[in-house]
């Protein structure tokens, strides 16, 4: 089974900035779910209006976008980008 990413680490180091950031994705996902549940009545109304005006294709497209967004974020686990030049260091890793 593929587990969702739990942490994201971003590190940027150059002449202007020098910071590292740990993003707790395991907290962001439940938060996103709560937001989705809270907004679900509005989304449902929007879907009904769009379908009423014959724009059902947009609803279908939106749902597919949502699915791909979820699948993509789920698949981020293990991503690592590490670029080091003479002046800059950019590191992104998803754990």
């Amino acid at each position, binding site marked *: 089974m593929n587990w969702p990413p739990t942490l994201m680490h971003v590190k940027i180091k150059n002449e202007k900035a020098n910071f590292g950031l740990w993003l707790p994705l395991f907290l962001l996902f439940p938060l996103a779910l709560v937001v989705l549940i809270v907004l679900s009545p509005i989304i449902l109304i929007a879907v009904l209006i769009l379908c009423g005006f014959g724009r059902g294709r947009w609803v279908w497209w939106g749902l597919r*976008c949502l699915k791909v967004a979820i699948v993509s974020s789920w*698949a981020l686990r*293990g991503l690592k980008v590490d670029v080091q*030049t*003479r002046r800059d260091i950019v590191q992104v890793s998803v754990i």
Partner: protein
Amino acid sequence: MTENKKKILEMLADKKISVDDAYRLLSVIESDRGQPGDTTRAEPEVKSKPKYLRVSVMPDPENERAENVDRVNVRVPMSLIRAGIKLTALIPPEALDKVNGALKDKGINFDVRSVKPEDIEELIDALAELEVDVISGRGEKVRVFVER
């Protein structure tokens, strides 16, 4: 002649097995020649599925100009590539026409619409054999490979 070969020929002489069976058994023994006395066929090596696509640009230690080279190390999960290919299904047809046109202008005769979700697994399996190894004159060592 090994014991196993003798046994096969004896069985053939006694008409316990057919000529075809004897030939097949002898072929198995021939293929396992490195393991005397073992009549079982060696299992083919099971390749694990590719997990990551790796791209690395590192300074070539043998090149004196390598000190100024930028270092890049990217590891992309295969599942993300799968998801990315699925993204093409969301591109509107008008945009796909533009993409195809731009590719054609660059001399690439490829229809983006021909990428179907069913082809993804085949594509990723093909990627498993990929390995690019380039050493440039500027002291860079570029490697693109698949990690299991």
